[in-house]
């Protein structure tokens, strides 16, 4: 009986993988549901096993199975791993993703699973923490804080209880690495958390997954049950978000687990000293924790040898938006933006010129192609007035209206603001209003473009024109926008209000013409 | 108001009070109980009440418990 591999990843399913899998089952094949390999232009992807090798076909529809089974299908890809998109990667964290049955303990063990945990349990907690320090691993949530140092603080803290919390509240548009790993290799995260528990003396962990990821929640819950014996006495539970982007902020996430409004806590105290339920808490991004098994299994050096400057190891870059070959690309730090977008991503899906990319989600900066030589590195991005964040890259073609995107950044902040601090609570709504005035002023001067009259559903912002009372001219409003961004950036309590100025100001600085500034008028789009 | 309204007469109340004190200190044993009861009446009762309980003790033998009776005897003997 033929064995075929079909992804159960939510994106693959959204593209019809379930129908394909059912068709193969109907045709009497043994269907193994895996995670996604991470290249969505070839999804739904089917890998047919013959002579111990896996031959890939994709994209494939339910109607194509006969052709796939007799090997005649024109979308034959051969050895998927050999495709350029995969051949160039350094898969440390995502090595198993797309290859194994995510909920098969057997597969996991056969593909190097649990070795990190075994090694760690053979070491003293301090030795484990030292290894993580030596690996140079930095927080993958965006701030890039050295993970080992965080662990050391928790290890040194004295308390009746300590906790490991995994931040899988992956809300940034353009990112899906957390989702893919949980759906494609959940035991890897479990192993990483168990190692963390051993390292700092915590016996219980929480994985906070956003409710927008139903597949990941189900996979994670099942994986925890399946591996409970393996990780004992360390225990884990899943907590599901409820539609609040701000809960991706670590202190808001802790409040949410405690059953409270997801409002940001002021720091100090640091969660490492007084975190969940007031106890010392390791709260790491999923990618940080998922990198740990490799570090323990292969050694800190193997991890640290890869990378660029102070950014060590690999980063699972996510190519998203209007890009031809979108997907997950794990690679050592240092690769440039241009290589990622043009060489690996293959430019836009629409075939139009790339005009801008946003790196790091809704709080990340927009970069024009003129800055594509920027290397993927925390420091380099910070210097360029941006951030790597969760390493998502969203590509836009030349039809994008950057003023609209700046407005959206403010609108998003308004929708997701927890409402605690004033710059974010009021500032984001005022930001939308200011952008509306700028756009109105601009459009009264330049050609109105199609699709521009719809500005989202934030009603309160729509009825906010004030032509007579205040100076609504471009100069005045642009100056006000800069002042507002200054107040939000330096006044906000957390990154939501504090980083929203990045997309807004980068759009304003790099694409002034969209803000009606007297500069090369761009040729009418559409 | 209600005929069934049962309120003690002053004399009944005095006897009741003396017996109640005695009952509450009885656990100390006869001797100490008598002393305690006597001290208590001496310390907290007004002269008229003391006189009256003494008369009552004489007029209504058995109304007072042994301890209370002994105590009253002591108070007025003084």
């Amino acid at each position, binding site marked *: 009986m033929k064995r075929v591999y079909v992804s159960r990843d939510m994106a693959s399913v959204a593209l019809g993988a379930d129908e394909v899998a059912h068709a193969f089952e109907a045709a009497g094949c043994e269907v193994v549901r895996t995670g996604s390999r991470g290249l969505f232009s070839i999804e739904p992807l089917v890998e047919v096993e013959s002579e111990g090798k896996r031959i890939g076909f994709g994209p494939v529809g339910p109607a194509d199975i006969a052709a796939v089974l007799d090997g005649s299908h024109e979308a034959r890809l051969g050895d998927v791993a050999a495709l350029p998109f995969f051949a160039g990667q350094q898969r440390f964290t995502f090595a198993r993703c797309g290859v194994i049955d995510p909920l098969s303990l057997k597969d996991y063990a056969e593909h190097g699973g649990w070795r990190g945990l075994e090694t760690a349990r053979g070491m003293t907690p301090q030795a484990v923490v030292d290894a993580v320090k030596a690996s140079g691993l930095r927080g993958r949530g965006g701030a890039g804080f050295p993970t080992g140092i965080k662990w050391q603080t928790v290890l040194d803290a004295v308390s009746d209880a300590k906790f490991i919390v995994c931040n899988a509240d992956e809300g940034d548009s353009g990112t899906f690495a957390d989702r893919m790993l949980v759906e494609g290799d959940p035991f890897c995260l479990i192993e990483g958390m168990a190692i963390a528990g051993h390292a700092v003396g915590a016996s219980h962990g929480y994985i906070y997954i956003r409710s927008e990821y139903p597949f990941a929640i189900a996979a994670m819950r099942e994986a925890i049950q399946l591996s409970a014996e393996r990780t004992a006495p360390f225990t884990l539970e899943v907590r*599901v978000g409820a539609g609040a982007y701000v809960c991706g902020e670590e202190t808001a996430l802790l409040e949410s687990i405690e059953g409270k409004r997801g409002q940001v806590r002021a720091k100090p105290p640091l969660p490492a000293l007084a975190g969940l339920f007031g106890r010392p808490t390791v709260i790491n991004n999923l990618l940080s924790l998922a990198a740990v098994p490799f570090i323990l299994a292969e050694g800190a050096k193997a991890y640290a040898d890869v990378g660029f400057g102070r950014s060590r190891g690999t980063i699972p870059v996510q190519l998203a938006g209007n890009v031809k070959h979108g997907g997950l690309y794990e690679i050592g730090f240092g690769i440039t933006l241009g290589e990622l977008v043009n060489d690996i991503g293959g430019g836009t899906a629409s075939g139009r010129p790339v005009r801008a990319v946003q790196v790091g989600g809704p709080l990340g900066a927009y970069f024009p192609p003129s800055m594509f030589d920027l290397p993927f590195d925390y420091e380099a991005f910070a210097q360029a007035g941006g951030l790597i964040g969760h390493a998502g890259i969203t590509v836009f073609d030349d039809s994008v209206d950057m003023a609209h995107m700046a407005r959206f950044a403010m609108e998003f902040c308004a929708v997701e603001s927890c409402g605690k601090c004033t710059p974010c609570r009021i500032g984001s709504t005022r930001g939308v209003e200011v952008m509306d005035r700028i756009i109105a002023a601009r459009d009264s001067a330049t050609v109105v473009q199609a699709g521009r009259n719809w500005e989202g559903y934030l009603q309160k912002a729509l009825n906010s024109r004030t032509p007579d009372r205040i100076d609504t001219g471009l100069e005045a409003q642009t100056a006000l926008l800069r002042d507002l961004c200054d107040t939000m950036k330096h006044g906000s309590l957390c990154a939501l209000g504090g980083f929203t100025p990045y997309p807004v100001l980068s759009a304003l600085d790099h694409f002034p013409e969209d803000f009606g500034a007297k500069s090369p008028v761009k040729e009418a789009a559409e | 108001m209600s005929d069934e309204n049962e309120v003690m007469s002053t004399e009944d109340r005095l006897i009741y009070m003396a017996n109640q004190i005695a009952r509450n200190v009885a656990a100390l044993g006869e001797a100490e109980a008598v002393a305690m009861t006597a001290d208590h009446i001496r310390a907290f009762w007004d002269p008229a009440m003391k006189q009256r309980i003494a008369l009552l003790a004489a007029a209504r033998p058995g109304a007072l418990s042994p301890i209370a009776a002994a105590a009253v005897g002591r108070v007025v003997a003084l």
Partner: protein
Amino acid sequence: MQQEDATRLIEDWTRTHGRTRDRLLPLLHMLQEEIGFIDDAAIPAIATALNLSRADVHGVVTFYHDFRRTPAGRHVVKLCRAESCQARGATAIEKAATDRLGVPMGETRPDGQVTLEPVYCLGLCAVGPNALVDGRPVARIDAATLDRIAQEIAA
């Protein structure tokens, strides 16, 4: 009747899952799963069960956009509005969807047949515009997809 249901559900659930405050979100998820929304009338029972004040619970319910205080339509379409989908034309699709489904974003159609809601990223960012239709992910939405969705909903 609904309220007794809720009270019983809350009792059964807390008996197995505990009564500590950190159980509030899981409890609310369960109720919404079972009943479809968080009835204001159920809040006193929730408060008693976890020994919180009604205000505590109300504050939490109203903070998280997932929790509905009124029933949703028979079908729920969550359409992504985030950047990656916008880069692939979501703004136009959103406009088309509201027209095609005959309900403004964030509202339930008067006939109760469908609720159209914004969602900010489903993690399908290379294959947008995306949506969750009654929990099922749909990618690369175009006019044709919208027609299919509209037909499902009409059914």
